[in-house]
């Protein structure tokens, strides 16, 4: 018990000065009201008792709960003092009794007139006064230390300082060369030069991108049951690049939330919106996609709340917030901003890709010129051709039908019939199934059916299919028909001919889908639809340039079908051209389609592909350059003289790069706009009142004329008037340096959060971020919202540079270093732990960007995976030792090396990692493959370049790991281990080859003077060095 009391005393010591001086509402009263009263007398209208609201002064006074100046008449006091269990507040069953000290505070506050003030976080930050020329960080930290009668610590030694700075700014320890250069630099601005060097390093972007990726819940897989791999690294690389070029934070946010809606948005701005698409995607069998689409938006709001606004918004999903001013309506108004997007997957082209595309485009322009040259009167001929084709197209009339049902067996997925009569497949992607559509036509005579495969923004690359290229293959189509007058009486309809306007040339199925090496299935033209052979399929894939376009197939009946009063068709599409997996990755399913009928004689598919058909349908004045080019090429294909040239163009197109891809957002077309409703208790099946986009009233206002777009939301988030945005990001940056934020709950600045330890510092830094005035050593004057400016300010402070040594007294007084009377000292993030080992051992591959790499994982790890993991191609080359930011992140079964050091899974936004210190982590850095390879490599490195005596080598290795020279006692301990291990090796008690080498190294890699025994003994020592607290800690 004594122990417990001691804790409580020390925990409150930091704010104990409160009792003596006057009452501060925000500090003394508001927390009591939020904690003990707000649940029933707070913002939540539905949960409010006795119609009394106590967090708003007018309501509390009007209800006489508070009579300013007269505590004895205030019902609030009467009730909290009452001894009657039916009267006393809070009700005993809530188990939140008001303490004597709190009662006294409330009494004094009411006596003083019960002044309220707005919660600090909802008032925009203002620069606080400070002595001129003072460093803002030190000014406020010192002022607080003075109040507490504490002295700051001395500056850390240089080696420690450079290690701390390098780990913080780049996530990598300094090299020995960098250390020596700094130690030798006697100029007064030696430290500032290091700051500038590290801020300019490309590794700065990597280190801080990983920090942002936590908040952005980045992962390389979809999550949920399937948890299939996704391509999202292009977004990660965008973040690295944006931070390296110091994209101002307001732009950084705007681009990530609405980059696609910016004027002149290019690929980069569209990639940026991948931020919101980092949400998980559920493609479990039988799900209703809408349910998980809504989950995705809820996740996006949560992420914006934590990462940008610093508010827990999630409560608003089901009800008005209990403590903070956010109503359920306001929650869904935010929701409305995010409710009209396509969940897009877009192709992304690298500079190398784009170079190739430019070259191809140039070649095509050249060939078009040749075409024109070859046919001098090409213009007239093109006109004639176009007129004829246009007439054909106009005459080619089809009646679209609205399906009454579209189903697959066992409901493994649920095709959705859209308002326009098209059918859209989202959710589970079957690799083998049959899709049956029922359509009715009132027409008496039908000569053919037409199946249009259509693009849609929610499909991969726009579709029209759902395979990894956005295309599909249909193995067979079977048509049955019944007269509407006897609609169950179906009979088989024989199809005489199937044609399509897009056909892959006949060949063996794409290797990605092959079930085994003897897989003889074919893909090709539309005739495969009706050849009674499930091993052949129509595949409309026209290659990388044109595959993601609409296309259609026409099924002409052997004889016209006549039913007075109309016909019901049952159309069954067989999909038997998927791969061997049951989880959708190798599906070849259709994405969106429509069924139409005609009664014209001899109907066939159009000869022209859809993009040409579209151009033909446009009035001349609306034709784009691309349309014109497409028309010329299409015409050239039909002319004997130009066929060859057109063929050359097609060849060029087939060399079009496949590109990479990213999940991002795109604005929905008008015809697919959604309305937003408040969802009762957050249930997606219970929409109630319709709402329009809007922002919460407790925050700053929107401009009057702002359109209801995502871009408006994005701009609002980073408005100069936002009370929280700048504070939140300053706080998170601060937290990364010092272990704790100035607000210890970075995700929540609401009324129940602990108040900032240094409110003036937080506010001054927030304003300084938005409107920089403090001069620094940077070459250029800082721009508004520059994160590098913020970093520079923090790391150049004396506060940051303090030694982290701590006395027992100070530890007792301030265990968590909230007062900052010493420098930071803690174990860095998982990624840095791994990167330190790779750097010290010399294994680190500093290559930047690109697809994530698969690290070695323990055998059998994926036995716990629901889906068979056939995509984990463990890196064996240099990629194995890439920085941890590039390690593949699988949500359901993450790489245990990172997970055991508390790396988040990416399931949801994480703005504060836990920092554990567990035996599992110890086992990881002792035994995991990557660490044992690092120990072996460090041993070789030391033997190669660490000098010639044991003592020299120990010093060298010790510095590589910890950046500081070892003390003599440390050298002695290590020397003992080295000697002892050598002895055992010599005695044959240990096997040198087993210890020293792995599948990638061999005795031949040894420097000429070293023996395998040396390498083994050093491997044992290196393993200890890599596990030192001094190695694993930023200090």
């Amino acid at each position, binding site marked *: 018990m004594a122990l417990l009391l001691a804790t409580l005393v020390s925990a409150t010591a930091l704010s104990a000065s409160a009792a003596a001086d006057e009452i501060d509402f925000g500090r003394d009263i508001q927390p009591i009201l939020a904690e003990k009263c707000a649940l029933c007398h707070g913002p939540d209208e539905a949960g409010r008792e006795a119609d009394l609201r106590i967090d708003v002064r007018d309501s509390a006074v009007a209800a006489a709960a508070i009579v300013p100046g007269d505590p004895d008449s205030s019902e609030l006091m009467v009730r909290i003092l009452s001894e009657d269990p039916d009267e006393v507040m809070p009700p005993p069953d809530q188990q939140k009794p008001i303490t004597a000290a709190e009662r006294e505070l409330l009494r004094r506050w009411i006596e003083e007139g019960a002044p309220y003030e707005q919660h600090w976080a909802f008032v925009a930050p203002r620069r606080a006064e400070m002595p001129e020329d003072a460093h803002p960080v030190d000014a406020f930290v010192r002022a607080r230390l003075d109040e507490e009668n504490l002295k700051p610590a001395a500056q850390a030694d240089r080696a420690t300082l450079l290690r701390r700075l390098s780990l913080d700014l780049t996530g990598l320890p300094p090299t020995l060369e960098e250390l020596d250069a700094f130690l030798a630099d006697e100029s007064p601005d030696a430290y500032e030069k290091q700051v500038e060097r590290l801020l300019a390093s490309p590794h700065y972007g990597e280190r801080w991108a990983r920090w942002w990726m936590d908040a952005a819940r980045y992962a390389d897989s979809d999550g949920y049951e399937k948890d299939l791999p996704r391509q999202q690294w292009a977004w990660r690389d965008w973040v690295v690049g944006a931070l390296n070029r110091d994209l101002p934070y307001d732009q950084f946010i705007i681009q990530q939330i609405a980059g696609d809606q910016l004027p002149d948005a290019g690929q980069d701005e569209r990639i940026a919106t991948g931020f919101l698409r980092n949400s998980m995607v559920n493609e479990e069998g039988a799900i209703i996609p809408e349910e998980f689409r809504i989950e995705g938006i809820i996740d996006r709001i949560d992420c914006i709340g934590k990462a940008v606004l610093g508010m*827990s918004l999630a409560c608003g999903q089901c009800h008005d917030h209990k403590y903070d001013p956010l109503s359920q309506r306001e929650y869904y108004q935010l929701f409305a901003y995010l409710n009209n997007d396509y969940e897009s997957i877009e192709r992304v082209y690298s500079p190398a890709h784009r170079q190739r595309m430019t070259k191809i485009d140039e070649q095509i322009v050249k060939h078009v010129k040749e075409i024109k040259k070859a046919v001098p009167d090409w213009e007239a001929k093109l006109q004639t051709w176009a007129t004829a084709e246009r007439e054909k197209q106009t005459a080619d009339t089809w009646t679209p039908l609205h399906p009454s049902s579209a189903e697959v067996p066992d409901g493994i997925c649920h095709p959705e019939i859209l308002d326009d009569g098209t059918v859209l497949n989202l959710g589970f992607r079957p690799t083998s199934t049959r899709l049956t559509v029922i359509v009715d036509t009132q027409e008496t005579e039908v000569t053919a059916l037409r199946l249009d495969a259509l693009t849609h923004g929610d499909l991969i690359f726009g579709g029209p299919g759902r395979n990894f290229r956005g295309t599909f293959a249909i193995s067979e189509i079977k048509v049955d028909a019944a007269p509407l007058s006897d609609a169950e009486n179906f009979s088989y309809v024989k199809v005489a001919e199937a044609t399509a306007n897009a056909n892959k040339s006949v060949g063996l199925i794409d290797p990605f889908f092959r079930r085994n090496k003897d897989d003889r299935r074919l893909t090709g033209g539309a005739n495969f639809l009706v050849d009674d052979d499930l091993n052949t399929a129509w595949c409309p894939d026209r290659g990388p340039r044109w595959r993601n376009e609409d296309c259609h197939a026409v099924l002409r009946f052997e004889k016209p079908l006549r039913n007075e009063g109309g016909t019901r068709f049952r159309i069954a599409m067989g999909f038997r051209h998927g791969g061997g997996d049951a989880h959708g990755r190798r599906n070849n399913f259709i994405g969106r389609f429509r069924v139409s009928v005609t009664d014209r004689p001899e109907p066939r598919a159009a000869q022209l592909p859809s993009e040409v058909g579209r151009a033909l349908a446009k009035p001349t004045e609306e034709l784009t350059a691309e349309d014109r080019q497409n028309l010329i090429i299409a015409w050239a294909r039909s002319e004997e003289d130009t066929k060859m040239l057109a063929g050359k163009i097609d060849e060029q197109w087939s060399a079009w790069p496949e590109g990479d891809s990213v999940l991002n957002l795109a604005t929905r077309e008008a015809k697919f706009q959604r309305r937003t409703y408040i969802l009762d208790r957050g249930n997606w099946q219970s929409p109630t009142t319709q709402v329009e986009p809007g922002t919460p009233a407790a925050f700053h206002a929107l401009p009057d004329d702002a359109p209801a777009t995502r871009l408006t939301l994005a701009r609002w988030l980073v408005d100069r008037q936002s009370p929280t945005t700048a504070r939140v990001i300053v706080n998170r940056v601060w937290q990364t340096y010092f272990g704790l934020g100035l607000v210890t709950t970075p995700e929540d600045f609401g009324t129940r959060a602990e108040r900032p330890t240094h409110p003036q510092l937080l506010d001054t830094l927030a304003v300084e971020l938005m409107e920089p005035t403090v001069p620094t050593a940077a070459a250029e004057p800082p721009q508004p919202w520059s994160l590098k400016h913020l970093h520079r300010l923090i790391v150049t402070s004396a506060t940051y540079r303090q030694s982290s040594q701590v006395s027992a007294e100070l530890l007792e007084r301030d265990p968590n270093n909230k007062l900052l009377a010493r420098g930071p000292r803690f174990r860095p993030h998982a990624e840095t732990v791994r990167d330190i080992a790779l750097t010290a051992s010399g294994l680190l591959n500093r290559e930047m960007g690109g697809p994530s790499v698969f690290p070695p994982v323990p055998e059998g790890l994926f036995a716990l995976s629901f889906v068979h993991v056939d995509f984990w191609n463990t890196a064996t080359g240099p990629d194995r030792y890439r920085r941890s930011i590039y390690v593949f992140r699988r949500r359901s079964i993450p790489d245990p090396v990172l997970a055991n050091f508390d790396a988040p899974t990416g399931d949801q936004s994480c703005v504060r990692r836990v920092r554990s210190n567990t035996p599992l982590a110890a086992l990881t850095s002792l*035994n995991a493959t990557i660490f044992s390879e690092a120990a072996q490599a460090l041993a070789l490195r030391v033997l190669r370049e660490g000098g010639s005596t044991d003592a020299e080598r120990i010093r060298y290795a010790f510095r590589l790991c910890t950046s500081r020279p070892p003390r003599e006692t440390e050298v002695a301990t290590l020397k003992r281990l080295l000697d002892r291990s050598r002895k055992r090796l010599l005695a044959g008690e240990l096997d040198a080859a087993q210890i020293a080498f792995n599948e990638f190294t061999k005795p031949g890699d040894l420097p000429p003077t070293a023996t395998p025994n040396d390498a083994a003994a050093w491997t044992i020592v290196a393993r200890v060095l890599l596990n030192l607290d001094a190695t694993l800690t930023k200090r």
Partner: protein
Amino acid sequence: MTNPLRDEMARQTSRRWFLRQCGVGMGSLALASLLNSEVQAVEENPLAPRQPPLAPKAKRVIYMFHAGAPSQLDLFDFKPELAKWSGKKPPAELLEGYRAAFIKPDSALLGPKFKFARHGQLGVELSELVPYLAGVADDVCFVRSMKTDAVNHAPAQILMNTGSQILGRPSFGAWTLYGLGSESNNLPGYVVLSSGGGTSGGASNWGCGFLPTRYAGVPFRSSGDPILYLSNPRGIDEVAQRESLDALRELNEQELAQFGDPEIQARINAYELAYRMQTSGPELMDLSQETSTTLEMYGLDAKNPKPSYAKNCLLARRLIERGVRFVQLFHEAWDHHGNLTAGLKGRCRDTDQASAALVRDLKQRGLLEDTIVIWGGEFGRTPMVQGGSGDGRDHHNRSFTMWMAGGGLKSGHVHGETDEFGFNIARDPVHVHDLHATLLHLLGFDHTQLTFRSQGRDFRLTDIHGHLVKGILA
């Protein structure tokens, strides 16, 4: 009364207290004394066992999670009326507002596929597929009126394990460890064992959400290293390992003397615990000390007990004997949309004997009285048929069965009842939240009071729900 939040603070202070009172000399104590649990009590240990605020009926939990959702209608909840209606469409009023995951709601009904008979003193009706369970029916409490909110696997598994469909909440096991700590000095307090396939819910099923990482379930593997990275790298023998760790400890102690950061002491302790795990892990997995009678009771081949669900059941007993607080077995194998008859036969052959043996074994050893044993999936299966072959059932969240045994629970008891088709609950519904509230009660907690603050809110396993199910309390 115990307040876990306050305990967290106390734990932080106790570390400092230890440093002050005992100097920095943890490392100077010999390893032998580290293994002595009296000394251990002095050692700073955030997982030290704690008394719950209420009088507990049980101290530990073994939860056999049968993922994929076993068919209650063919195993535990006999519906003669359903047999009569087999092949017919269900009455329309039954289906109002109903949505199944895969099938059309008005699919035909499907009668039970197996024979049922009465067992034990109470005459609990059980299917012929679970003869071993029938043998311990008098020790078991059946809840035939379970219900849940989710109808897809991943969300339903997450809900059953964490009390929420939203990812990022702590699992039941993590809450238990947070509330009670662990009595094991050399094994994790919450151990997860898997057989069958991987689960839909993945690691979130045993995650710690916003609780500190030490409360997360630690997956043990039934072959190879029981704990990831437990084995030393190639060629490092026991002596080299001890010598390396001695050197490491010496160096870290010097660092501690220099910097005074208690985290260094915590790191020294973590490495020593890791070392102890290297011994205790293999010892745990070594079944050679078990009698052949015991092995055979679980259905294990006494000469070669292969990795299996049965082996995991036996390991569960061995784990709790060694002070582990919470053991969770996952067996993902029950998603019988089709091939139900053969599938169920096979799954029951794999699991029935060992599940029942665990109950029997615990009882024989006097462990059942303060251990909670739970058996169940994430939801149930429909009375309606799925698939053209007439041999499958879809997901059903309106009613299903779970069974439990042990500390504080009624034995030989059936709680709740479904309607004549096994479609809706007819009596005494038990929602997942109610189950959680009741289990926490048995462990000594008021479920509304075991909380952790995250994002300004006090979270609990039961969210804002949950009622004590008094009907299953002994």
